């Protein structure tokens, strides 16, 4: 049962989109809470853009529903987008009109209130000096920024951005992230789709990871990191004897030699007991380094699976939601 009016910024339940035999979005459930900077992460073609298009009412889901602040775009049309703005794929404008005229058009389509804010939003994206020029002459980065300006015209509470940094040079990517961060710091809820791990890691506090149309993880980024098996690298005065001690120690697993080190999996308590056991065995510990799985490791594990298996979520989506 979906929340009635005044629900969370985004609530998707059982979202499915089929194109013939292809299922682009496969029973997607996700919830974006107020104030979240939410990463929608997945490889290209995973279904992120299709899901975002459904959220914005551009395409109809085959099954399921989305509600934005409790309103269904399929049932309530443009009214469901009150307080919502964003773009999917590259933002597009009329190339034969100036940037300012494009914004005037969009402000008029929003009821006209945004017209007074055009200068402000152009300044926010640093396009004020090029606003009179035709959009046809804009670079990709300028169009991306104009897309953000067009979204800000609506003074949104929820911003949906699809790969906002795609195609930008490093400086442009940095500026875009700074802008998103500033907006989020101002209290705006942001749903950001991306295939760039660094972008999500830098900006987002919660994520959904999508693979072949299915959500394989949804929850806090910190929980995702914790869900990865913790490993340790250890170096002793006698690794051969240390290997025997490690293998005999309860709670320690996957012990293997790697160069001058041993690698093993264990939780913090087991490692503490192991270090005591090694010292009692007369071994000197010259290094003991925790190795957390990186987001990249987890992402690839979730979206590609381990060799020989299909989807291999580190955390089942439902369990992850409960944990979050």
């Amino acid at each position, binding site marked *: 049962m979906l929340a009635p009016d005044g629900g969370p910024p985004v609530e998707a339940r059982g979202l499915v989109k089929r194109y013939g035999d292809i299922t682009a979005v496969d029973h997607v459930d996700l919830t974006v809470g107020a104030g979240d900077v939410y990463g929608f992460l997945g490889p290209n073609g995973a279904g992120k853009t299709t899901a975002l298009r459904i959220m914005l009412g551009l395409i*109809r889901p085959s099954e399921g529903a989305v509600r934005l602040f409790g309103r269904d775009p399929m049932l309530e049309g443009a009214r469901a987008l009150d307080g919502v703005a964003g773009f999917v*794929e590259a933002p597009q404008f009329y190339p034969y009109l100036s940037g300012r005229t494009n914004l005037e058009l969009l402000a008029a389509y929003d009821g006209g209130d945004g017209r007074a804010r055009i200068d402000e939003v152009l300044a926010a994206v640093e396009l004020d000096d090029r606003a009179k020029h035709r959009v046809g002459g804009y670079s990709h980065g300028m169009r991306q920024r104009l897309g953000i300006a067009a979204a800000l015209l609506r003074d949104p509470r929820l911003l949906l951005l699809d790969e906002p940094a795609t195609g930008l040079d490093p400086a442009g990517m940095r500026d875009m992230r700074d802008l998103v961060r500033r907006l989020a710091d101002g209290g705006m809820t942001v749903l950001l789709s991306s295939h760039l791990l660094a972008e999500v890691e830098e900006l987002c506090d919660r994520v959904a990871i999508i693979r072949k149309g299915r959500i394989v993880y949804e929850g806090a980024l910190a929980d995702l990191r914790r869900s990865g098996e913790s490993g340790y690298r250890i170096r002793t005065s006698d690794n051969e004897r240390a290997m025997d001690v490690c293998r005999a120690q309860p709670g320690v697993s996957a012990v293997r030699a790697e160069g001058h080190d041993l690698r093993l999996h264990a939780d913090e308590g087991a490692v503490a007991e192991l270090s005591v056991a090694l010292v009692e065995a007369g071994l000197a510990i010259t290094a003991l380094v925790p190795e957390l799985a990186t987001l990249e490791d987890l992402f690839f594990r979730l979206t590609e699976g381990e060799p020989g298996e299909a989807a291999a979520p580190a955390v089942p989506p439902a369990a992850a939601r409960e944990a979050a």
Partner: protein
Amino acid sequence: MTSRAAELGGGALTVYRWELRKLVALKRTYLGLGAAALVPLAFVIALAVRSDQPNDIPFGRYVHQSGLAIPLVLLTFASGFLLPLITALVAGDIVAAEDHNGTLKTILTRSLERGQIFTGKALAAATYALLALFLMGVVAVVAGGIESGFNSLVDLSGTTVSAARALGLVAASFGVYLWPLLAIACIGLMLSAVTRNSAAAVVGTLVIALLIELIGILPGLSGTQPYLLTRQFDAWQGLLRRPTDWDPIARSAWVCALYGLPSLAVAYLVFLRRDVAGG
């Protein structure tokens, strides 16, 4: 009018105004309007350098006697290809181009309903057809008047009508001529929404007009002629008879509605329900 209806109407008018503004900014707009203005000029220039006249076209024999015959001759001349093409240029493009350029998703994620956007676009396409026809008429009347004078006109029944009355009849004829042109615009709009391809919609509209015309010359189907859309381009001739022959005019009204309204309805429904997955 309820506040909701006023809100919907206001939104459609906003779209309409911006569609016109976009048309003003597009070079293609002037191509069609330029053709609508240049064809009468070229026709009058040709008349000026030749002493004969197109006798096989209604009012063709009077082009040297009254400049008011020239716009009427041009109505017949332009109905086969010129004005349907000019109309299709915008009607066939007005939805498909937005889809192709990805701007449809930009405007559909604002505060206006799809129905309002469609209505504004349909009105803009109709306005363009009206403007092209008006421009052709004004240029033809002025150029024809300069070339042959604003003289009285002999109508299709052989009655001489005064220049002032003839001018009114010319205006009314252009008004009746607008109906099939609007039906053509509706077909163009439908193809624009369905095919999502400007070129296919423009060419498709002309092909449909051509096919409709061909139906009438197929053996055994000549009885369908009064009900073919393209034949409604001649309905204005009823105004130029004494007494006025209202039958073709009345038939034109419902036949054009029969072609135009279902096309418009299909375009509307497709636009309302379509997935905007491109761009």
